[in-house]
């Protein structure tokens, strides 16, 4: 496992706990992600991995513990939080493109309204991003006119348009047909190669093998293993991880 100096971390979680009523969804989570690192979070359903991902830009509040982005603690609800969220890109399982806006407007809304970029410049940047994820042709259309894979690539472009320090992916391919999964993963692999800091919650083991620097395995709200993909897939240490991996291989 890579040893880390906390001060070096772009994203750091320290003793984070969260409950949903009786259910203890995050149990004493400690995690540091350095600049340029790609961390894949895997684990069975209900293990708290999505909650962990959403807590990092405070779409979920936590009960106690400290979450820091680039050394700065997550502010409470308000202007400060909005500003910090602009630095954290988020891609959702259900895409969540703005249904009443065109593809181009989806990508330019953040830069224009949050960063105060001129419309002409935002349009230019957005078109470049849309070309990069392979949906430049779709710019004038509405989200509903696109396939799931195309919508998710637009969602990635929308997050990138804010020039974020870190990108969070919350099961980005779980709502997609098998043949559309790859077109999204290709964009993500490319992004990882370009040095983007990424935290990816996914069930795509292929992506974890190919692009991850580290694999974090969660079960029952705890981080059970934190290892390189090589280590994790060939030589898992915990029984929980062995059990999880054996179930993947039998199908």
């Amino acid at each position, binding site marked *: 496992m890579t040893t880390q100096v906390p001060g070096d971390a772009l994203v750091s979680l320290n003793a984070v706990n969260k409950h949903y009523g009786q259910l203890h969804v995050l149990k004493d989570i400690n995690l540091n992600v350095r600049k340029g690192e790609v961390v894949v979070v895997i684990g069975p359903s209900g293990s708290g991995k999505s909650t962990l991902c959403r807590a990092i830009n405070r779409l979920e509040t936590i009960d106690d513990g400290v979450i820091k982005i680039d050394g700065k603690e997550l502010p409470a609800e308000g202007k400060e939080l909005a500003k*910090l969220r602009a630095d954290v*890109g*988020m891609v*959702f399982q259900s895409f*969540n493109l703005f249904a009443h806006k065109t593809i181009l407007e989806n990508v330019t809304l953040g830069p224009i*309204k*949050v960063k105060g970029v001129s419309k002409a410049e935002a349009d230019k940047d957005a078109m470049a991003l849309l070309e990069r994820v392979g949906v430049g042709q779709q710019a004038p259309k509405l989200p509903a006119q696109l396939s799931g894979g195309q919508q998710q690539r637009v969602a990635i472009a929308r997050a990138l348009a*804010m020039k974020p320090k870190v990108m969070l992916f919350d099961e980005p391919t779980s709502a997609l047909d098998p043949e559309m999964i790859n077109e999204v993963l290709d964009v993500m692999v490319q992004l990882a190669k370009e040095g983007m800091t990424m935290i990816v919650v996914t069930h795509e083991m292929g992506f974890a093998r190919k692009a991850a620097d580290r694999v974090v395995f969660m079960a029952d709200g705890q981080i059970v293993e934190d290892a390189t993909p090589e280590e994790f897939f060939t030589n898992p240490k915990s029984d929980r991880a062995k059990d999880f991996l054996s179930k993947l291989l039998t199908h």
Partner: protein
Amino acid sequence: MNTLLNNSDLFITGFRNTLILFFFSAIFALILGTIVATLRVSPVPAMRAAATLYVNVVRNTPLTLVLFFFALGYPKLGLVPIDFTTAAIIGLSLYTATYVAEAVRSGINTVPVGQAEAARAIGLPFAQTLTLVILPQAFRAVIPPMFSVFIALLKNTTVAAGFSVFEAGAIRANLSERGEPALTGLLWIALVFVILVFILSALQRKLEQKWKVAR
């Protein structure tokens, strides 16, 4: 036809005032109702409570009483004096705003929560998340009930006739004074209202087509 033509002055003044009451009340009710609806979904409990109280108190009061208050009760408070037309516009706006608020609130509830999350995730603050992402989609979803509210408002303006505002509802009384048959007069007034509502319905259809949200 003679009833209409011989008394066109009454009809024109009456319906002109009806339209004045309608347009001003509709605009104020739309603005106030939207604000109240957003307060009802705001994260601040005090705002939610205040908006809920307002909707329940005013909506549960008969319109006649609301107008009575502004036409007869308000002047006794010794505040800035207002004429009857202004009083009627204020009363109608406050009353209709409660219905607008409920329509808008149900529209807000149709917008998937992921839309707000995505807006927050790109750094939009609460106010912009509402005005740029949630409300535009909410309005599109509630065009039919919203127009029902405005059609009701158009007809509710006639209640103001009871408070010395000369509008369409007061035409009949004036016709009687001129010795015109009451039934004919009422039928003509009804016909004009039907035509006005048709115009509103046509506008509704147009907006529905223009703002069809594809999902």
